[in-house]
């Protein structure tokens, strides 16, 4: 591994707080094109620890119906990477919470990897999650660019990931590891089953160097609480998208949602 990225809001956060961290995902440009900053402000005010902003994509295969539909709405609204960076241009004047961008590799490739990382740094994005960018390809071709701009690339592990590969991912990661709770797409499971607990315990016992956040299937206080017993916190996505759709983007609505998760 080359030099780790140390000065970054995500690494700073984990050095200060290492339990019950809440990371909330929402889709940029959803439900309305100009809602990105509204939701971001709302989440910060509600006290979430990290925010994951979805870069909408036409074919998000790792996501379920809820997130795919929100991606479709955002694209129909006119959202693009260019528009997203414009919306986030001045966000660091008021937003202190760490921000990750989550999305698929093709729009990023068309934007240009160097251009993308440079813009992330310019607007104050701290990390990126690109589920379909293979780890080896990232290491071979893109890691240097990410490091040059101080952008963390967060990798996923699943219940089927071998211990050997988890060790490798842990070695090649800085920031945190995204633990996919079960063999699933987003928003497709609810509740935490015994096999999931078994997997959580297995990972816990591996004593990884990186902190871990559990995602997929975290949709209420109970699941957040359980996940937090086995990891440093959890990630909520589809449940929040459904909430935005039904209850709107007001600070009160967002705060109410975050309270139900944290309780």
């Amino acid at each position: 591994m080359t030099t780790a990225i140390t000065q970054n809001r995500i690494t700073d956060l984990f050095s200060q707080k290492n339990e019950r961290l809440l990371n909330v995902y929402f889709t940029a440009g959803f439900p309305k094109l100009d809602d990105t900053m509204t939701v971001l402000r709302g989440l910060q005010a509600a006290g979430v620890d990290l925010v994951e902003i979805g870069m909408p994509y036409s074919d998000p295969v790792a996501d379920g119906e809820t997130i795919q539909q929100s991606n479709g709405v955002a694209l129909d609204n006119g959202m693009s990477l260019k528009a997203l960076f414009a919306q986030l241009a001045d966000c660091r004047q008021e937003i202190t919470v760490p921000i990750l961008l989550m999305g698929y590799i093709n729009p990023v490739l068309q934007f240009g990897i160097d251009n993308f990382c440079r813009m992330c740094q310019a607007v104050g994005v701290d990390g990126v999650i690109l589920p379909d960018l293979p780890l080896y390809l990232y290491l071979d071709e893109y890691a240097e660019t990410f490091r040059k701009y101080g952008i963390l690339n967060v990798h996923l592990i699943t219940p089927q990931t071998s211990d050997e590969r988890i060790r490798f991912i842990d070695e090649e990661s800085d920031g945190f590891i995204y633990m996919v709770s079960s063999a699933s797409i987003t928003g497709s499971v609810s509740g935490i089953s015994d096999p999931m607990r078994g997997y959580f315990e297995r990972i816990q016992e591996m004593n990884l160097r990186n902190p871990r956040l559990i995602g997929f299937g975290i949709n209420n206080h109970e699941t957040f609480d359980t996940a937090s017993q086995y990891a440093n916190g959890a990630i909520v996505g589809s449940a929040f998208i459904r909430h935005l759709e039904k209850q709107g983007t007001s600070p009160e609505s967002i705060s109410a949602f975050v309270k139900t998760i944290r309780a």
Partner: protein
Amino acid sequence: MQTTIEQTTSFEVSDKGFYGRFGGAFIPEMLYPNVEELRQSYLDIIAAPTFQTEFWQLLEDYVGRPTPLFLAKRLSAEFGATIYLKREDLCHTGAHKINNTIGQILVAQRLGKKRIVAETGAGQHGVATATVCALMGLECIVYMGAIDMERQKPNVDRMRMLGATVVAAKSGSQTLKDATNEAMRHWINNPIDTHYIIGSVVGPHPYPDMVARFQSVISQEVRKQLAEKTGKETPDYMVACVGGGSNAAGAFYHFLNEPSVRLVAAEAAGQGVTSGHSAATTALGKPGVLHGSRTILMQTEDGQVTEPYSISAGLDYPGIGPLHAHLFDSGRGDFYAITDDEALAAGFQLSKLEGIIPALESAHALAALSKMNLQAEDVVVLCLSGRGDKDLSTYSKHL
């Protein structure tokens, strides 16, 4: 009976799954163990003598191979060249797709899988998958775009009759691209006991290579049959249609290293390349990543995948296989864009001239003949990938 699958070509895929700058395995971590298991084992599995025996036996006794290489005399007279049709339409289930599903079901069995998931466009791959699942007693789930289910209803009924569950993909354009997304999601949700039989030379490595190898039986037979009929193993042109490109990959395979053979690919231009209703990938696309590989892809400036259109459900796909992207990129292949109208006309022409009703997909390949500037001495082999029964309702609107 054949005993080996040819394994060498300069278009051979790299160990990371690349043909030139196209290919790879761009997959979420959720699919990594499955794809990696396949990558590490597929070559050994298909090289094993017991696999080879079973594969070739099934191709002969169940699929009906070798398929004929038919000298189409009246078609030849029409174009002023010697034109042979490789009759994949005579395969069991009516198209070349079964060559691959026979191979993959044997791979799935050897990996200990209990369930098969597949995507289908025209329904030919779905039928071929449902067929081999019935043959081997494995559960079969086929995802098909809701729109395709309407326009290819006979194939939906055939799949159901064969015991498969057909699931309508209702996202996006409700065609092949979305059926593929849904099948991939199903695989993500069922990683341990399920094998995904991809129907074309697309998807993450090793699928494009594995499918091309199973389909390479087409060009292997062509070489032998052509030698018997003409004394020469190689034609001047090998012509095939390309959606994802599996029949073309199979037809081209043993000629990839023969520069004297021009490889001709017919893509679906729909209502016209610039009409906004087209699936002519090389004309409209640029490098991008979809369904697990880097290829040439129809997309917006922002990298969103464009909805393709073709009258032929099997060609209604916004990308092409990475091997084909490399053939295009390197200039090794000639790519023609064929409109719906041109394909329909070619389909009617073959029906009347030779008594063969071609699938609309194959009709695109036939339509390329008129664009190729053929000379009297040229020998052309055209891969007639499937039969047109499934397309009768479309043809009948234009009778």
